């Protein structure tokens, strides 16, 4: 029990640091603005993965036994870069080059295995197919390595997501996890207003995935999904109910923060809210 408490504390601290880093990068991006809301909604998901669930070697981002991570909703890369920094693959100084000329850290991830970015993403609907290929390769080599793909609920408008959703159970990929960040918004409005796509849990289940729905900011619930998943002989899908812009009063459930500029005063306000 105590061990679990410590584990949760570590993940919470990791998530806190991610949010701090997101503030720093969003401020550094300045007028070029950043995808703020969708990064904050996946912060706990990313933290559970990078601080606890994923096998990674802190001294070698390319270690072949590492679990593989694919940010299919590539625009949420602020959280990804922040996590890679917490792990030690990206320096704090480099984080501040976010979206700057010639940076390694653009507004969507660009493959760069020296700093732990395994794939280029950003065009929605492509990550899960990649994940299937990777998971197949690892199974063919009989490696005990998992593949984690984070998708958006808006992204699930893309037909290619469902091509991949159909294929993974056919190939019995029990090493594949799809985490759907259900923050209920997409670029220009709510899912309901733009393209309502209800009953995601039933949809993924009916495609043959072992599916669970949890509070995507509840570390315990997230942990139990991944831990239970280890013994389930199917690909696993998680519908993670989240809040877009989670963590800051000005951005929570406010879709203006899908892609926006963080001013110095809001940065300071955000920092204060985190400390509290």
């Amino acid at each position, binding site marked *: 029990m105590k061990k679990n408490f410590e584990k949760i504390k570590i993940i919470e601290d990791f998530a806190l640091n991610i949010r701090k880093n997101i503030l720093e990068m969003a401020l550094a991006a300045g007028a070029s603005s950043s995808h703020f809301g969708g990064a904050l909604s996946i912060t706990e998901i990313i933290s559970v993965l990078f601080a606890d669930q994923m096998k990674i070697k802190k001294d070698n981002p390319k270690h072949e036994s590492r679990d593989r991570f694919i940010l299919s909703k590539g625009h949420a890369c602020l959280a990804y870069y922040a996590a890679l920094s917490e792990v030690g693959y990206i320096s704090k100084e480099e984080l501040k080059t976010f979206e700057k000329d010639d940076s390694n850290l653009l507004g969507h991830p*660009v*493959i760069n295995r020296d700093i732990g970015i*395994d*794939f*280029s*993403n*950003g*065009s929605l*609907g*492509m990550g*899960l*197919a*990649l*994940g*299937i*290929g*990777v*998971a*197949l*390769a*690892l199974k*063919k*080599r009989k490696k005990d390595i998992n593949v984690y793909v984070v998708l958006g609920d808006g992204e699930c408008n893309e*037909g*290619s997501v469902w*091509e*991949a959703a*159909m*294929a993974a159970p*056919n*190939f019995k990929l029990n090493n594949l996890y799809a985490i759907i960040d259900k923050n209920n918004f997409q670029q220009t409005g709510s899912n309901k207003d733009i393209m309502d796509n209800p009953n995601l849990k039933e949809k993924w289940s009916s495609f043959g995935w072992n599916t669970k729905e949890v509070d995507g900011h509840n570390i315990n619930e997230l942990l139990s999904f991944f831990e239970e998943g280890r013994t389930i002989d199917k690909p696993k899908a998680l519908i993670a109910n989240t809040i877009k812009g989670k963590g800051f009063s000005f951005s929570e459930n406010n879709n203006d923060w899908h892609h926006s500029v963080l001013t110095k005063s809001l940065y300071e306000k955000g920092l204060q809210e985190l400390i509290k």
Partner: protein
Amino acid sequence: MDINTRNIKVWSTIGSRATLGIAAVELAKEIDELMVLTCDVSTSAGLDRFRKTYPEKYLDLGIAEQNMIGVAAGLASENFNVVTTTFAPFQTMRCCEQIKVNLGYMSQKVCMVGIASGLALGTLGYTHCCIEDIGVLRSIPGIVIISPADSLETIKALNSAVRSSKPTYIRLTGGSNNPIVYDKDYNFEIGKSITLKEGEDVTIFASGASVFQSLEAAKILEKENLSCSVINMHTIKPLDTDAIKKACKSKLIATVEEHNIIGGLGSAVSEYKSTLSSSPKQVFFGINDTYSKGGNYKFLLNKHGLTAEKIVNDILINLKN
């Protein structure tokens, strides 16, 4: 593979698609982590024997080409040597952005084979004919494009592409009873064109099944006392620019392809030619930016001026004017 007269005849009779399947079986013997992916077209792609012989190296993604390219890229990212294949329009345009991001932007090495490209499927209409694939893929940085002249060159192209480090598109044209251009073994190198016939007056650059028609055209032109070079430009990207530079000594350059005259071999040759201070006129043989009514292969070749006789006719007119 055993390249002899008998086998060359067999491959020619069965056409490049069925030859592809034979080549894949042979490759699998040598390349341990080869994977062949397809989208419910195993029979059309000549893969039935491969599927039975190497079930562990074969993957059918169903009718879902976008997913096939993503899965192929995922396998490639773990260093599997992946070949994907389906009909050319679906192999290239249905999944074009997946090709751009995964194979172009991310440089994942996958070898794509577009079967029955060009006009071979004319009776099925232009959903299945493919006159746009080279143009579309040529605009994506980093992708090698090969259009083999006959069945033997299909084997050679596949072999070279699988062993290279670059993402590649192999465009198969022609039907069964694919005319033989190469009746014995020869040296094939990606990016290096092959001069099949030397001549001074006209240089014809051709790719795919149009190479044979161009050779026939050159024979007829010879009877008219015109000497013709015929160059098999099997690799359209990267382009063999030295061959084009050399061809500028001719009075006329012709490009022949079963592709839209916009975006294909003709465009590639003229793009380079326009950087030279002086170069001869170019005649573009291809589909003149239109979707015509369908019909059988020979009918369409004739309609679009891609038979030897039509090529001769147009070259003579252009030499006079």
